[in-house]
């Protein structure tokens, strides 16, 4: 737990000092402007909640992916990766804690998006079920960290996969129903989207802002937790196996 806390604090300090890492805190309000403009122009103010929530999930996803990619490559370029791996501290825990730090920071984008809807668009998006919103945001941030740790394992094994880092954004925004609910997707795609935790998060976040009672809240929160835990388990397992292999072959610097 202490290791997790220290790695979390280290990454939080690092992130807040790097303008590029927190760029989502600038882009999230801009995405809100784009989505709010579309809904206002179409006279669909009922979609304001969607316009506020989508940039939050986009920030969570893109910042976690960026960190997952940067984390390994930066340690490698600084020459500290070998030292990190040689310490008795669990490397997967360090990776998970550091990604959790950035996903936690990126939840600030919810406040930004809400403020942009209020000014300049004059739309006050009411949070009808604050506890549901809070739980959903916390679990989504953790699920994101778990999923991203699996991605970081992929980047250790295949540095060239970082070229594709950018490619993991919009396909998942679409599958995750973050702006357009999954029910609008073709029927054959819907089962696949249910395997992406974002689809559960986006649905539940929208329910949290809707005046209607939240149906099946616990099972939906559980789905986010289970999918996040699965990503985390896969990530941890992959990192452990990859490190064992590169330790025995002495190829860590070359992976």
């Amino acid at each position: 737990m202490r290791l997790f806390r220290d790695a979390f604090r280290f990454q939080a300090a690092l992130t807040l000092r790097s303008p590029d890492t927190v760029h989502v805190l600038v882009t999230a309000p801009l995405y809100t402007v784009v989505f709010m403009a579309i809904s206002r122009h179409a006279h669909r103010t009922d979609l304001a909640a969607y316009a506020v929530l989508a940039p939050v999930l986009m920030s969570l996803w893109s910042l976690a992916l960026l960190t997952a990619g940067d984390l390994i490559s930066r340690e490698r370029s600084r020459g500290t990766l070998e030292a990190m791996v040689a310490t008795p501290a669990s490397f997967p825990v360090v990776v998970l804690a550091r990604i959790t730090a950035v996903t936690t920071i990126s939840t600030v984008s919810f406040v930004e998006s809400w403020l942009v809807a209020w000014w300049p668009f004059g739309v006050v998006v009411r949070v009808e079920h604050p506890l549901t919103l809070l739980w959903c945001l916390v679990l989504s941030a953790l699920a994101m960290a778990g999923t991203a740790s699996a991605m970081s394992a992929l980047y250790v094994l295949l540095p060239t996969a970082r070229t594709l880092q950018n490619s993991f954004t919009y396909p998942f925004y679409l599958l995750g129903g973050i702006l357009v609910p999954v029910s609008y997707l073709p029927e054959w795609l819907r089962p696949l989207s249910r395997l992406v935790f974002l689809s559960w998060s986006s649905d539940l976040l929208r329910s949290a802002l809707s005046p209607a009672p939240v149906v099946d809240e616990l099972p939906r929160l559980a789905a986010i937790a289970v999918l996040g835990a699965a990503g985390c388990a896969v990530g941890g397992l992959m990192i452990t196996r990859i490190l064992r292999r590169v330790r025995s072959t002495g190829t860590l610097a070359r992976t």
Partner: protein
Amino acid sequence: MRYLVRTSTVLRYSAANAWADFRASYTWWSWTFGWLGRMLAQVTFFAFVGIMLGDQAQLRYLVVGNAVMTCVVETMSVVASSSSEGRIGTLPLLSAAPVRLAWVFLGRSVQWPVSGSLTALVSLLALAPAFGVHWSPTQVPALVLLVPLTALSTYAVGLFLSAFVLTASGARNLLSNSAYLVMMAICGVQVPVDFWPSWVRSIASTLPLTHGLAAIRSVGDRAPVADVLGQAGLALACGVGWLVMAVLAFSLLEQHSRRRDAFDFGG
């Protein structure tokens, strides 16, 4: 005359560097299934917004706007690739060379508008018909000219911004992403430019994307050729204006950095 020959040689070598950089970053496989796939997913994402709105005209507007936007997103990578010279420590050498820094950087990232134009044309001609946006064979040559015009004129905007992150590479993603999102919001990609207040419209009118996209929409609407040419001319004029500003910005940066010894090898 000698100056022109030397400048064109610098541009040629710089463009060769850009091409080598592009080949090192992508294979045909990773470009097609990684990059192109990602950009087509972005267009599809906004197309589904149109479907959700339930209005065919809105769907068409979003599909065309976002298909053209793909070339802008890619072109704005000029900010990141220019700043990489600062990170790898080549700026003092470039600054000491007997050529203007602006010409080096003009060729240095030319891979992005070329690749971006290809991405936008695939989006317009192959993906857009899936959402009901069809083009007749007579409209295609106009698109093939107008999309690269939009990409190249936007490249000048990106080049201007590059001068500001050359010595502050930590802000490269922040600047390029913010710049293309501002263009996405105000240049008529998602909503007509008229939607915005007059001061926003004034800013939009200085950006090449506003006019390039308007020209492409005019082609789609079968507007008179004069309308298309008028908008294309404005896009070109804006592009030239931004290029002049980029050259000035690089010259000022060069002078300032030489005086203050601001370029270093450290990266």
